[in-house]
């Protein structure tokens, strides 16, 4: 009787669950993921990796790195082949590989990217012509709400330049130690290879802000930060001015993250900006930095 009652009471309660194998209607075709954002004044760095079949086990970035790819960056007719390199990510104790090289990127210049890998070629181009923006003010907020829910963070004001399509993204540079946790996906990950020492991180905002319908106005943006903080932690805050394609790409990445977290959001396809591959080749122009010191521990 007890079984029966529960059976009928609510079907979800007795719903059985099992792992199943599902195959898409068509066979998986390997794709390349390219993430190349040029910053004026910095050496170009292009992340090139292979996408994994969805149901394959997780692997380290080195294992999906597109080793052997020929990555050529051309500016004013001068083509330069970028070299494979990597940087250590102390927070997750792992190496992040990429292709890097050549002269620092310059404002106003056009760059062509050509990548050859396993018999396929990929091409993209970008011109760094977006204007640098000035941050008017930075304030701390203990709570604000966005589509992801409630957060603490910072509120930034800046004056948008009229007559242009502008896209902005937050950047915070700071030092953290292995006591600080990440707000989301890295929440359970603690660095165990820094011996308790402080190390630098670059915290990029998830939301891409657009001046659509508010062109030329004072923009007020509430921004969630990635890592925990303590009162007195000092940070350097920038706003990135993104080109349109970079903005579109990261907007779709942001939207997809919402759909992954929230079961009531329709699935989002990433808006790739490179033909034949997933990814983007674009640019970001940094504002001048603003010193911001946290007035309290995170709530």
């Amino acid at each position, binding site marked *: 009787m007890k079984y029966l009652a*529960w059976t009928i009471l609510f079907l979800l*309660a007795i719903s059985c669950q*099992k792992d199943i194998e*599902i195959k898409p209607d068509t066979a998986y075709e390997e794709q390349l993921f390219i993430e190349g954002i040029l910053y004026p004044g910095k050496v170009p760095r292009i992340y090139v990796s292979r996408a994994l079949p*969805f*149901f394959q086990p997780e692997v380290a970035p080195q294992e999906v790195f597109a080793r052997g790819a020929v990555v050529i960056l051309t500016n004013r007719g001068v083509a330069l082949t970028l070299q494979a390199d990597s940087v250590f990510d102390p927070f997750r104790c792992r190496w992040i590989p990429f292709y890097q090289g050549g002269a620092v990127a310059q404002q106003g210049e056009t760059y062509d990217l050509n990548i050859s890998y396993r018999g396929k070629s990929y091409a993209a181009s970008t011109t760094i012509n977006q204007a640098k923006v000035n941050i008017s003010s930075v304030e701390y907020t203990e709570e604000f709400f966005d589509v992801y829910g409630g957060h603490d963070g910072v509120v930034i004001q800046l004056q948008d330049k009229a007559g242009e399509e502008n896209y902005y993204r937050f950047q915070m540079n700071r030092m953290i130690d292995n006591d600080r946790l990440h707000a989301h996906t890295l929440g359970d990950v603690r660095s165990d290879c820094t011996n308790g020492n402080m190390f630098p991180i670059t915290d990029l905002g998830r939301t891409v802000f657009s001046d659509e319908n508010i062109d030329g106005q004072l923009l007020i943006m509430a921004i969630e930060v990635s890592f925990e903080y303590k009162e007195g932690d000092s940070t350097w805050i920038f706003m990135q001015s993104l080109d349109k394609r970079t903005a579109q790409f990261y907007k779709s990445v942001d939207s997809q993250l919402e759909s992954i*977290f*929230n079961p*009531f959001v329709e699935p989002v396809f990433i808006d790739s900006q490179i033909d034949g591959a997933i990814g983007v080749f674009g640019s970001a122009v940094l504002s001048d930095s603003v010193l911001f010191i946290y007035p309290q521990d995170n709530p």
Partner: protein
Amino acid sequence: MKTSSISIVFLLSGLLSYESVAQKKYTLSGTMKDSQTGEALIGATVYITSMRKGTTTNNYGFYSLTLPMQDSIAVVFSYLGYQPQIKKIYFNNNLELDIELVLNEDVLDEVVIEAQRSDENVQRAQMGVIDIPVTRISELPVILGETDILKVVQLLPGVQSGNEGTTGFFVRGGNTDQNLVQLDEATVYNPNHLFGLFSTFNSRALNNVTLIKGGFPAQYGGRLSSILDVTMKEGNNREVRGSGGIGLITSHLSLEGPLRKEKASFIVSGRRTYIDLLARPFTAKGNRSNYHFYDINAKLNWQAGANDKLYLSYFTGRDNAEYKETVGIFYKILFGNSTATLRWNHLFGQKLFLNTSVIYNQYDQNIETVQNNSFSQVFSGINNISAKTEFQYLPNLHHSIRFGAHYTNHEFLSKGKTEAQSSGNQSLNIGSIPSKYFDELAFYVNDEINISENVSTSLGIRAPAFISNKVEYFRIEPRATLKVSVTPTSSIKGSYTLMNQFLHLVPSSTASVPTNVWVPSSLRTKPQLSEQFALGYFNNFDQNKYEASIEFYYKTMDNQVLFPAGNQLVENFDVDTALVYGKGWSKGVEFFLRKNTGRLTGWISYTLSKTDQQFADLNFGQKFPFQYDRRHSVSLVGTYSLNKRWTLSSVFVYSSGNAFTLPVGRINVANGGSLFEGNYFIYEGKNNARLPSYHRLDFSATYKKRRKIFGKEYDSEWIFSFYNLYSRSNPYFVYLYVDHNENKPKAKQVSLLPIIPSVSYNFKF
């Protein structure tokens, strides 16, 4: 469009004038009823053997035949499941003849009747129509002791169910909102109880069910894909009768009888689940899980005079469910329909029948859900007040003309809200949702024309209009079917229909509960439009013991609506502003073989179909499969009368899996510890994968016996049944998760219904 309308008018007038010069004629008219209850027999056949011509009764049991004068004619009155009657009539005057047919089981207990069945399916011009004899439904396998009309509809060719546990049915590639479900002419917006296990229709209160999926006559409109016309019983007008049943989770009771013998009758029928009461002792204190539904049908009818009859029907049904799991899941689902219909039938002589109705119907749905700590709520509310008037004019054997008007005032409320975090106090303020009002008006005329002995057609035109304070839409809908008899027992039919629909149900493709939202057409959301072409071959064998058909169809659907990628409902936004628009195409072939009489009855149906959609703002603008596109659907339904007491029946269904969106690849965005960092999905297309196929076998055995209690006889019935006999784990939905042991994503299927044995007891006195 204009040319086709003019052609129809010319054709009609030409054929009518042809009749006017023919010889002297008389009219035979009347009603056909059940001998015991006085219930109208809908779709019963009146057939003149010598002329090989006939007609069928309308929804009120009325028939009329105008024939050339003859000394005498033999008329056969028949209806499936009833003893046919043959009358020899001296036909030299107008004649009114009311016929009462006797149920087969009442005449002969031991013998299985092999009465000849009507060949209406072959001879009538209309196609895409399937009549479902309610008397036969009770013998089919049931779930948890509940006979269900919609479960039977889902076994018919061209009709598909959703996933297990989802409500609604899908006809020829159309979404659930494209089915017009009418109960005594009142629209029922959600004909299902929760999870689609039961329909809102208590089959004990029903008289007749007809499904039309193509070749729609002009009297029907407002939906693209199908009409499910359900007629309630009128109630026994001779003696008080009751019936009831006790099942594992529901009980039902019906009472019917005369208010004034042969003049006025009533029927009241109610059903309620009591699993919430049974489960209460076993649920932990403070557990908020709870579910029950109920429905009530009631009808009064009054023969006001020789030519006037009044009907008052009422229906209400509600679901109330709440489920709270210890971690992270909460559902609160409340929804219900109510309808009331007041109808007046009037006969102007023997050839003109009038039906006028005033209808009220109401629907509301309020679903609050917390899943993965995300909150979502969807509310839809609809209130309609309608008036219909329809004339049926039967001037002669060659014409059956219907014309009329239909007006509806709609009030719509819809709002949705999704938030990433559940805070416990974020419900919508239902009272503050603004109403949207609009009117729908339609005029129509339809003529079923017998052009010659072998050729007949049904031509119609409907002119619907949608009027709101912001936008007006006026449309013209031509309808045409043509039947050519190949042999006396076979015919070829073709049809073309154009339909408009001013309501839209926006489906959610993600959530595991039905968080769909109704929205009306607007300036931005154009009326749905479909064109359907169908061609079929119909053949009956062995004196109509077997009927077989094959139908091909091709349907286009414009102005389809979906939510855009990344959509989440925001309280302050009008749902209408958050939609994307596209087209749909469906094509298929449907086979149907039915055995109507004998110890073994039942049918086999097979549908091969393909439905695609295309939206500029979805799936990179490329075509993608409709969510409920199922390539193959097979149903086998059989009932075998073992002897006068035992009846065995079984149902097997198989359907290809539904389409859903599955990522094909993963990329790791490793941008230096930012909030972007993590795994992202690569999709190659919307609805690019298929759920596992759906199949199950049901079985039931019914034991009938006439018993006595307190010296009075009553009919009793035990039903033993197994739903999903081999306990197939059919998919309800699939979700993705990361297996941290193997460090990889996996797909998990949730299934609802394993094998469910049940026993129920029914009685009738």
